Every structure is written in structure tokens, then in C-alpha cells.
């Protein structure tokens, strides 16, 4: 039977019990959002005792389904004040699923705010152990120490930023080689973990692979999906994700005039090539050593978009340089030195912060005059302040919105106080609708309309045209809500969008595991239900349509080279929720 592990941090007790029947068909985001909606008051303080932090592997996680080792972490977000699901790919999720846990729910708060704990999870039991010796330790040291101490366990932890309850703090998971590199970064969930006095979780490896209820349906679905992934130009072995990583998008968005540059002042960055996936792959090849492309964030990924970036001497500098980080800490700061970008990602991974929020915050800090755009070394020094916990570090560590207010900056690219990712809404209108209307705060993964607007996946639309993008964004948001629940990496959707049999395969694997008979249409309906639930939570927290608006400067500042403002009207933004 699937189990729930409830951990009460107030009285320091744990309880392993059979998962409630009403959650039996849920996983990942569907489960975290349902549980938060049912058990957390939308009015609670995100860092107080009444918030809960939920870890949930996806529906097919722990099976042999390809690219399915994803985990959802949910809570009320201290960054946005709304509901949050933040997703990551890691062996931790597979181990948790294979031990039979559907979810870990962290509740309450210890009386003594100084103490830190570690949660040790085995097949039948769990225990809280004092972890004061890990206080203030970076995620690298924490993961290495715990890997030595707990052999054959996967690790999840927070860095100093989470302990200090900074709202850009993320939750770190190990990759297959025990790097502190896989993050549920967005929305400040590391601060929620810190507020509960929980420094780390270790989960025993092993367990049994999940046995599907209907093995034949599962196997047939798996075959169709693998076939689709292996034949699509983007996801196949030797395809662009595998060869160049996601940072191959740097040049694409730059050519589209939609690569936010120097804190969203321009859409083209003259130094794009030097932070691109093409350049990165060349450096990795030249330097050799620990460097590699085609790295997998968890065993069983057939796409393998991750990488390890080496220093000039070949030693492991950081994993991984992905599009979002190369942009946020590169083009967005006017920095065109990939070694500087790598160092900043390493600092983010170690301090335990989201690279998107960190980069956008530094952009706002540069706007405020704290450093010059283009000065990578100054950016590195600013970032180090967060790890030090200096007063400036506390301002920056609380994100772009907070930093903008602290320094009187108007050009602050946030929605619901969460930093915008690497696609300029004024150059790609549909993705703006997703940023603005998703219950998550500005988030590209919530409804990736970039696929048809820029990449020619699932059609080809004019990115600059504001018309007829509402339904598009809503449809992508619905499918995504389901994919985030399934345990699959969102990147399978590049193949499933173009190849109908791959979509069938995805749905069939879910049916095989759950013993259900969902059709692809049912899946969209389920996604819509998840969205509605999340929206309702946010309404309870005080959000209205007025929070579904772009930052005002995007309405009056024209973005070069296309010189567009954000011109999807408010009424159309509101229509996203007419369903």
C-alpha cells in the first residue's frame, strides 16, 4: 500500500500510515496542490507553524518509464504569498517512490528555533535526528557529509539561505553522482523548510520498482513514449537537448529579439554567443576532464539535457549550466564570461538559492547602481553577500521585488513578486500570459507557449502577435499541471506535442500504474481542475484579477529591437480563467 509520512516538527514525532484513499490516484503537483488546499489555510504565514511542506514523487516515478524521476515540492510560498509547486529531477524522488511513499508532509515548527534536524527515511520507518552540526553549511558540504555518513541514501537539503528563511531559497537534491545540483528552486520553499528547522532529508536507496496495476498497458505506453522521444529531433540521442543542453536556446531567443538583456532593457544581447549552449559544449570538449554534456539528472532519463561544466584545469566547476541560469546570470547582467556564470551558479547551488530569482535580483541591483552591467566579478561579489548573511545579503536574498523596493527601482520584472524567467513577454506575447496568470507567479514552465511561438513545436505562431494567445496559454497550463503530476519531465512534451502516439504512450503509462482508463482529453480536464484548485487557494490568500497583471513598465517601455510594449489587454488576461 502507498504510504504517507507525516513529520510533526512541533513535537518531533513521525507517523507512517496508509495514504488516504482520496489521494490514491494523485501524484506530484496534483497531490501537493490538493493537500495544501485541504490542510493549509491560505491566510497563514508561510514561515509560521501552520504552513506545510509536501514532497511528492509523480504518478509513474519509480517505474521504468523514461525521464520520470521528478519530484514536486509544495507549500504556501513566502515569495509570492500564493500556492507553490516547485519541480525537480533527482534520484531522491525515485527512491522515495520505490520505498512506497506517496508523500512526505512536514508540519508544525519546533519551539527552539535554534535547533536543526535531519529526517532519515527507510522503508518502514522514519526518524528525526539532531543536525546542529550542519548549521550554516553550504549544500555542497552538506550533501558530501551526508553521503559519507549515510551510504546508499539519497539526499535533500537546504543551504544557509534556507536556514535564514530568505525568500529566494530553494530546496536542493542530489544528482546520480551526489552533486548538490538539482533544485526545486522557485518560490522560496527552502525558507519554508528552514522555518521548520529541517536541514536535510535522507532517503534509503533500494526499495522495489513500482509494479503497475496493468502491466501490459504500462509496457505498451512505455514503448510508444520511448519511441517518440528517440525519434524527435529535440529529444533524441544526439539531438539538440542532449548535445548542447537547454542553453542552445540562448542564440534562438537572441535572434528572436526576446532574450531579456541588462534587466529587461533590451531583447538582444551582443555577447549571447559566449554564454550559449554551442559555446559551452565547445569549452566542455576542449577542457575535457570532468566536463560532459548529455548528463542525466536521474537514472532512466533518455533525453539527458544536463551537463557538467569544467574549470580550465578540467576539474568539476558546476552542474549544470542550463538556459535559465546562463541567461539570468549572463545576458540579464550583461555578463558574457561563461566561467563567471559558472561560478555564480555554483554559489547559488551552495548557498541554496534559485538561479532565476538570484540573477533577476542582481539585475535589479545593477539597475540600482550596486554594480555595473557587464561586470561579472562584481556580480559574483554581490552574490556572495547572500551566503554571508550580511544586511545587503538579506535584502538581495529576499528577491527581485524586495530589492527593487529597497533601492527605489521601478524596472522590476516580477509577477506576484516572483522574478520573470528568460523569455521577454514584450517579444513573445503568449508566454507573458502564462507568467501573468499562472497561480505560481512568473514561471515559464507553467505553460510553455514558447514551443509554438518560437520553436515551431506544435505549430508556428507569430510571437509578436498578441491575439488569440489566451486559449493557447490556458491549454499549455492545463497539460503542464498534469505532466507535473505524472512524474515525467516537462521536456517529454516536445515529443508528445508533435507525435500523437507519444502522447498516448504517456497517458497509457499513467493508466497502467493507476489502473485507470484516462484518455488524452481526460488528462487536460484533470490539469484544469488542478489549476482551479490552485487559483481558489490564491483567492483565499487575497489574490484578485488585479494581481494577474504585467509589471507596469512593460506597458509603457518599448523593448528593442521590435519596439513593442506588452499589449495583451487586461480583459483578455482575465479570460484565461473563463473555463
Amino acid at each position: 500500500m502507498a504510504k504517507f509520512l507525516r513529520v510533526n516538527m512541533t513535537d518531533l514525532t513521525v507517523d507512517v500510515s496508509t495514504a488516504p484513499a482520496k489521494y490514491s490516484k494523485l501524484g506530484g503537483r496534483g497531490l501537493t496542490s490538493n493537500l495544501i488546499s485541504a490542510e493549509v489555510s491560505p491566510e497563514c504565514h508561510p514561515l509560521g507553524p501552520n504552513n506545510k511542506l509536501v514532497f511528492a514523487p509523480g504518478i509513474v516515478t519509480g517505474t521504468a518509464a523514461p525521464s520520470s524521476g521528478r519530484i514536486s515540492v509544495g507549500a504556501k510560498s513566502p515569495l509570492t504569498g500564493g500556492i507553490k509547486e516547485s519541480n525537480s529531477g533527482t534520484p531522491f524522488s525515485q527512491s522515495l517512490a520505490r520505498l512506497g511513499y506517496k508523500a512526505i508532509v512536514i508540519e508544525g515548527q519546533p519551539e527552539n528555533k535554534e535547533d536543526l534536524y535531519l529526517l532519515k527515511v527507510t522503508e518502514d520507518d522514519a526518524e528525526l535526528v539532531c543536525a546542529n552540526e550542519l548549521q550554516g553549511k553550504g549544500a555542497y558540504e552538506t550533501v558530501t557529509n551526508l553521503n559519507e555518513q549515510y551510504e546508499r541514501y539519497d539526499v535533500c537539503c537546504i543551504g544557509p539561505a534556507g536556514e535564514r528563511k530568505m525568500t529566494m531559497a530553494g530546496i536542493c537534491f542530489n544528482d546520480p553522482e551526489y552533486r548538490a545540483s538539482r533544485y526545486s528552486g522557485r518560490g522560496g520553499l527552502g525558507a519554508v523548510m528552514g522555518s521548520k528547522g529541517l536541514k536535510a532529508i535522507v532517503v534509503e536507496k533500494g526499495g522495489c520498482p513500482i509494479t503497475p496495476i496493468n502491466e501490459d498497458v504500462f509496457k505498451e505506453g512505455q514503448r510508444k513514449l520511448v519511441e517518440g522521444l528517440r525519434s524527435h529531433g529535440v529529444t533524441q540521442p544526439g539531438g539538440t537537448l542532449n548535445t548542447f543542453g537547454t542553453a542552445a536556446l540562448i542564440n534562438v531567443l537572441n535572434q528572436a529579439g526576446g532574450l531579456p538583456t541588462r534587466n529587461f532593457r533590451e531583447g538582444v544581447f551582443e555577447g549571447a554567443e559566449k554564454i550559449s549552449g554551442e559555446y559551452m559544449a565547445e569549452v566542455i570538449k576542449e577542457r575535457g576532464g570532468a566536463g560532459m554534456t548529455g548528463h542525466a539528472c536521474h537514472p532512466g532519463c533518455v533525453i539527458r539535457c544536463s551537463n557538467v561544466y569544467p574549470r580550465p584545469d578540467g576539474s568539476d566547476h558546476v552542474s549544470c549550466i542550463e538556459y535559465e541560469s546562463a541567461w539570468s546570470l549572463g545576458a540579464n547582467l550583461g555578463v558574457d564570461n561563461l566561467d563567471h556564470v559558472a561560478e555564480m551558479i555554483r554559489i547559488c547551488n551552495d548557498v541554496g538559492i534559485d538561479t532565476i530569482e538570484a540573477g533577476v535580483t542582481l539585475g535589479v541591483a545593477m539597475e540600482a547602481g550596486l554594480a555595473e552591467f557587464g561586470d561579472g566579478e562584481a556580480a559574483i561579489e554581490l552574490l556572495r553577500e547572500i551566503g554571508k548573511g550580511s544586511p545587503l545579503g538579506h535584502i538581495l536574498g529576499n528577491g527581485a521585488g524586495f530589492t527593487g523596493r529597497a533601492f527605489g527601482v521601478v524596472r522590476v520584472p516580477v509577477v506576484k513578486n516572483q522574478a520573470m524567467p528568460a523569455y521577454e513577454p514584450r517579444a513573445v506575447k503568449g508566454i507573458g500570459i502564462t507568467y501573468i496568470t499562472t497561480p505560481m507567479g512568473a514561471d515559464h514552465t507553467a505553460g510553455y507557449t514558447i514551443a509554438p511561438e518560437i520553436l515551431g513545436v506544435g505549430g508556428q505562431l507569430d510571437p509578436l502577435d498578441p491575439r488569440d494567445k489566451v486559449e493557447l496559454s490556458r491549454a499549455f497550463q492545463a497539460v503542464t499541471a498534469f505532466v507535473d503530476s505524472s512524474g515525467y519531465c516537462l521536456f517529454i512534451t516536445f515529443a508528445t506535442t508533435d507525435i500523437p502516439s507519444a502522447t498516448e504512450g504517456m497517458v497509457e503509462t499513467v493508466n497502467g500504474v493507476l489502473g485507470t482508463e484516462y484518455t488524452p482529453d481526460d488528462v487536460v480536464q484533470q490539469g484544469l481542475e488542478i489549476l482551479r484548485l490552485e487559483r481558489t487557494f490564491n483567492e483565499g490568500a487575497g489574490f484578485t484579477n488585479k494581481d494577474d497583471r504585467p509589471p507596469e513598465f512593460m506597458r509603457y517601455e518599448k523593448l528593442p529591437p521590435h519596439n513593442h510594449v506588452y499589449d495583451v489587454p487586461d480583459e483578455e488576461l482575465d479570460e484565461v480563467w473563463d473555463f
Partner: protein
Amino acid sequence: MVKVEILLFATLRRYHPRGEGEGSQAFTLQLESNTNLSQIYAVLGIPGEEVKMNFVNNRHQSPDYQVQAGDKIALFPPIAGG
């Protein structure tokens, strides 16, 4: 005749006229005035099915777009990410 500037990206860089080592460099082509993008693929020896995205002066264009003097053309294979 019209003169255009061309940039190749990702796996298309192996078709650079000066060899893959120069793949990231822009190069110019002199073309008949009614040349379209798919004819440029042929000039460069790029199989049409390998090209997924064409940007001309930062705007998407289809393979039958007729080039104009001074166009800055960027050609990409299928690419995606997040």
C-alpha cells in the same frame, strides 16, 4: 544581386563554408535577387529537413521567404529547452 549575412547555429554549424571550426562566425553570400531561404540551404549543402527555424532580421520567416539586400539570416535545427 543581393548581399546577405548568414549565421548558423547548433548542428548546422558543420555546414559553414569555412568549416565547422569557423561555425560561430557570420559570413556573407551574394545571391540572385529572387533567391529564397530554401535555395540558400541548397547553396550551403544543408538538407532542408535539418532546418527548423529561420530568423531574418529577428523575425521568423518560412523557407520560401525571398531574401532582400542586407538581410541578417539565422538558421537553426530543431531546438527546445526550458
